[in-house]
């Protein structure tokens, strides 16, 4: 890896880490506008993070070292996953053959510790959230491999950067294949980031939450780390989706960055619209929703394979 690529990778990673809360703020602002409210400023997530950082930390009496280490494991897992993504379609900091598997399992590591930390509290509320997270993860993980994995399969590649850079728009079947993949990725992103219609990030009713209920008994710097990790995770899935638009950005790097930012902004608007016009699904319908994404992924792959 030459020095320019290294610097490019570091800048891209810093951009994700610095701008992740802004992305969440933009979604919230648009959602407020669509529902006829002024809403909080787009930098509100930064204020909230700053406030949390200055709060006293309160831990539940029954919590063990798992609750203590889990927020830090969550954040570092997200940072490493973010370092594997081609921000602005550029070469990421971490890129090698097989990194797609590492990417999936680094995100899995964060989820694993979050479930354990939720169960560590010993409260039924966190237990319910952990149970839901574990159940939905069973259906969500295959979606990733049936979308990004099937793009990889189409060209026999295993590096995220190479996979995205192999996307071409010279074949109608392939275009349809990529469009359906992007729909599956969007469903996955909504699920993984606990957004509507799977989960409502603004709700405060313990019985209905997934992500928020798992961190219900966290405060201060622990809550800061969880919240910041969730912003980075949202940004990660937005980049996973936006990178599918690579074929429109092959001309030069400046155009690529502009197109990338436009797609990210469009995604923020899409999420805001979806969250405005849809109600939350009943929890029993969430697995069906995820199986739908898996089914279209499987069909998409089979149709592409047999018509190639």
């Amino acid at each position, binding site marked *: 890896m030459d020095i320019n690529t290294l610097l490019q990778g570091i800048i891209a990673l810093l951009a994700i880490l610095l701008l992740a809360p802004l992305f969440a703020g933009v979604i919230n602002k648009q959602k407020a506008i669509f529902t006829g409210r002024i809403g909080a400023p787009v930098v509100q997530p930064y204020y909230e993070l700053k406030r949390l950082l200055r709060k006293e930390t309160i831990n539940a009496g029954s919590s*063990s070292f798992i609750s203590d280490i889990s927020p*830090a494991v969550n954040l*570092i*897992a997200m940072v490493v996953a973010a370092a594997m993504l081609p921000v602005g379609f550029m070469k990421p900091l971490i890129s090698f053959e097989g990194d797609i598997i590492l990417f999936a399992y680094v995100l899995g590591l964060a989820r694993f510790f979050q*479930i354990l930390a939720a*169960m560590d509290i010993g409260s039924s509320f966190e237990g319910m959230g*952990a149970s839901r997270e574990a159940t939905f993860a*069973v259906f969500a993980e295959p979606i990733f491999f049936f979308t990004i994995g099937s793009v990889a399969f189409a060209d026999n590649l295993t590096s995220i950067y190479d996979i995205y850079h192999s996307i071409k728009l010279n074949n109608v079947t392939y275009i349809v294949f990529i469009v359906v993949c992007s729909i599956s990725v969007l469903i996955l992103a909504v699920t993984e980031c606990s957004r509507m219609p799977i989960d409502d990030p603004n709700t405060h009713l313990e019985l209905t939450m997934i992500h928020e209920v798992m961190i219900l008994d966290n405060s201060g*710097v622990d809550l800061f780390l969880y919240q910041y990790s969730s912003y980075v995770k949202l940004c990660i899935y937005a980049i996973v989706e936006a990178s599918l638009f690579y074929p429109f950005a092959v001309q030069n790097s400046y155009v690529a960055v502009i197109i990338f930012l436009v797609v990210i902004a469009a995604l923020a608007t899409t999420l805001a619209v979806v969250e405005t016009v849809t109600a939350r699904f009943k929890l029993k319908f969430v697995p069906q929703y995820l199986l739908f994404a898996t089914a279209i992924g499987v069909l998409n792959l089979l149709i592409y394979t047999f018509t190639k």
Partner: protein
Amino acid sequence: MKNYYPLLMLISTVGLAFVGGLAVACFTKINSIMFLGDERKEVKHFHVSVYDYLSLGIFALLCAGIGFYPQPFVRVINDVAGKSFMPGSSSPALLNINWFYISLIFLAIAAGFILIYLCKLGINKKYGRKISPAWGCGYERLNPRMQYTASSFADQLNTIAKTVLGYHKKIKPPAEIFPAKNRFESHADDFVDSKIILPLFKRIDTFISRLELLSYSDIRYYVAFILVVISIYSLIGFLWI
């Protein structure tokens, strides 16, 4: 002819992802119920010998070792899969992975974790940290019996797959307004066991029980049976030659 081997590999990977998701659910359930939260009853006599820790520690170290430096183990698995199960179809993808990166990234994760944790300790020192009871949604008298159970944790997943698992619950509906002592049971039958193996053995058992008419207390009948069987075998042997 098209080569569908990569497609097969992708479907296998997706299957593994599904199994991986189930493994996470199972491991978090077992680990959480055994080690996390508070014990329901006070455990008075509990002793684990050094040798118990040592034997489990070896497995834990092996797991960590494979995680940090997986290359030799992946090579062995790839060779076994390539030579024994799918001769000539071994994928070079696993061997092409530069496993040094994996080791480096795991070290980076460990280093990053230590850094974030130290920062967290510093912030806690500055702004304080205290212990408090868990959030009870207004109910103040939480006790260990109210903690989430393993059955509740697995309930949603079991309900989704209830047809295959034969998952069923037994609960008596409350008869009065105020809750009284009640009982709840949930079971998941083994599909293969309850629908295939046990019915099969039951039919075999029924068939064999019909042969009971051959069971006599007089030893001479048995000698006669042996002679008949030997005669049949001899006849078969004679006709075979």
